[in-house]
């Protein structure tokens, strides 16, 4: 089971229509993920990482200009599904989402238990008692006391609410969970706790994760693979082991150097300049303007180069 591909995304594009033109939030993304594997998508704000999550789960706003590519889940291209089929067979059945700031998006007037069981009632059509039994099981996995099912969101602390949101994504036992910045608003100790929970779920329930974050330090807590996103594209795809030792792409290297470290005396550095506007991204390499090792070839679109199974979109490796 383990080396089979669970999900494979090919040339995924998601462009939005805005007043000023077309924003190319996701611009030709490829990724591949096996069973019980966790990949971290790293990127700065505005690089399109949240749009990527939405594109994979087909949670689209109204102003979509282009939505194309392939999302192959267990060998089936789910992009061909109609909205109805997708909702019935894929979303929350095969993969679920823990949205950004999930802990603040719980409904204040419903009991936590009613919300956590809702995906199960809607998607699997089980009875309420069964759903509650399942929710109890998931609460045990994420480490929330069972009687919290009967409470309201405001009675729970931030960390507990985040765990409840994770439990909610788990109730239908999907194979893939997409987590969008699961710990960005939490305290250090709570963060460490949530990552402990995620690691335990990965071991016990053999779930796969796509973790979307800008926080490089904590991302290493869960990652098997790392994808680095810059200006709507994945510029590096690497094993976590290799990535945290020595990233390939100049952007990844700069990003790693910018992380303040607790246990090393290295002075952090920063990246000069700003990411390009996604309204009109540069023709060639999108990182060229900020890249210390840019040369004349970089004004052409760089190919994605396979370097011993690690993918990097940079002319330096051509």
């Amino acid at each position, binding site marked *: 089971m383990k080396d089979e591909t669970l999900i494979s995304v090919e040339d995924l594009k998601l462009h939005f229509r805005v007043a000023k033109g077309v924003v190319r939030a996701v611009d030709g993304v490829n990724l591949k993920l096996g069973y019980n594997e966790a990949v971290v998508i790293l990127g700065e704000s505005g690089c399109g990482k949240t749009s990527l999550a939405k594109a994979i789960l087909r949670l689209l706003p109204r102003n979509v200009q282009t939505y194309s590519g392939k999302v192959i889940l267990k060998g089936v291209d789910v992009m061909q599904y109609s909205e109805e089929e997708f909702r019935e067979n894929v979303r929350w059945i095969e993969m679920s989402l823990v949205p950004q700031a999930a802990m603040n998006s719980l409904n204040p007037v419903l009991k936590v238990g009613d919300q956590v069981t809702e995906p199960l009632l809607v998607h699997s059509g089980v009875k309420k008692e069964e759903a509650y039994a399942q929710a109890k099981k998931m609460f045990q996995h994420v480490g929330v006391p069972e009687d919290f099912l009967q409470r309201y969101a405001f009675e729970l602390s931030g960390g507990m609410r985040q765990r409840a949101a994770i439990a909610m994504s788990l109730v239908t036992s999907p194979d893939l969970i997409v987590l969008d910045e699961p710990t960005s608003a939490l305290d250090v100790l709570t963060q*460490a706790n949530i990552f*402990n929970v995620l690691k335990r779920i990965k071991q016990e329930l053999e779930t796969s994760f796509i973790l979307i974050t*800008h926080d490089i*330090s904590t991302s290493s807590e869960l*990652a098997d693979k790392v994808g680095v996103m810059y200006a709507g594209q994945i510029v590096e795809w690497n094993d976590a082991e290799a990535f945290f030792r020595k990233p390939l792409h100049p952007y990844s290297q700069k*990003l790693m150097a*910018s992380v*303040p470290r607790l*246990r090393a005396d290295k002075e952090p550095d920063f990246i000069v300049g700003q990411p390009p506007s996604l309204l009109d991204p540069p023709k060639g390499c999108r990182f060229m303007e900020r890249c210390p090792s840019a040369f004349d070839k970089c004004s052409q679109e760089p190919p994605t180069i396979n370097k011993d199974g690690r993918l990097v979109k940079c002319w330096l490796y051509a």
Partner: protein
Amino acid sequence: MAQVKAKAKNKIAAPMARIEREIPEDVLLSIQDLRVWFELRKLGFGNAGFVHAVDGVSFDLHNSEAIAVVGESGCGKSSLMKTILGLYRPTGGKVVFENKDISKFNTQTLKWYRSDVGYIQQDPYGAMAPFLNIEKIMEEPMVINTKKSHEERLDRIRKVFEEVKMMPYDDFLPKFPHMLSGGQQQRVVIARAMMLEPKLIVADEPVSMLDASVRVEILKLLRGLQEKHKMAVIYITHDLSTVRYFSRRIFVMYAGNIVEKAAVKDLLYNPSHPYTLALLAATSDPDAKNARTFKDVPPGEPPNLINPPTGCRFHPRCPKIIKGLCEVEIPPEFEIEKDHLVKCWLYK
């Protein structure tokens, strides 16, 4: 009703006993046994207890010194900061700035005080009026506090913008806050705090809303300004990993108390309070090994500050609790090495 009120008064009066002590000469700001409590109301009238947000905090901040206050949300670090800024009145204790007790200030003297103290907010976008352009935003402190002409004000803005590397400066002046990137917005907020050449800057999580690549740039900028202008800076954060590049001393705060005070190196290499140890253990460095191990996190959550635990406030979560002592008596500060103070019975 009257009885309740009298009771409330008694409760408030207890911590008013002040520690009068000599303030050394080069101390800019001295916090003495500061308490900030918020009263809870029952049905709008009766007293329903107090939130002990800051409960007995003391420290001295020297001229041109950078310190960091580290703590989780709800530990009282923001209340401490707001009291230092003169936005809250202390319930007990004193905030002494240049030998003047700021809790006794009236509106006029507070205005003088605030022109000496700059404030850098956490969310740069929220800190600026969206309907004013950058020129108006930057001018505001000088309009309120000085009698300088428009040209003189623009002159000062130019100087400050050069320092925070917002160049060319007149490109930015007509813009509105939403037209700037997050990093630029934070620079404007820093520049605004610098306008009146303050002696003290209070920075409340100045980089937590920014991206990793910009974060370091802003911190370096802030440190550069601090060294150049010899300002004192109080840097408030929850992120231990950014602290070492910024300040000389670190104060770790938990549930309204400062539990450990130490120089940066001492705190990182010889952390002594069990809470500091837990914080350090929970902070990750990017390393693939992390994925294979579980973190050691103390159980439970920070206590409710309405009814904080008796004795040491960390005792319900502490792995090294001394039964019969920690839950009964409040630990005093023990000096385990020079300038390294720990509020923990382990070092008795």
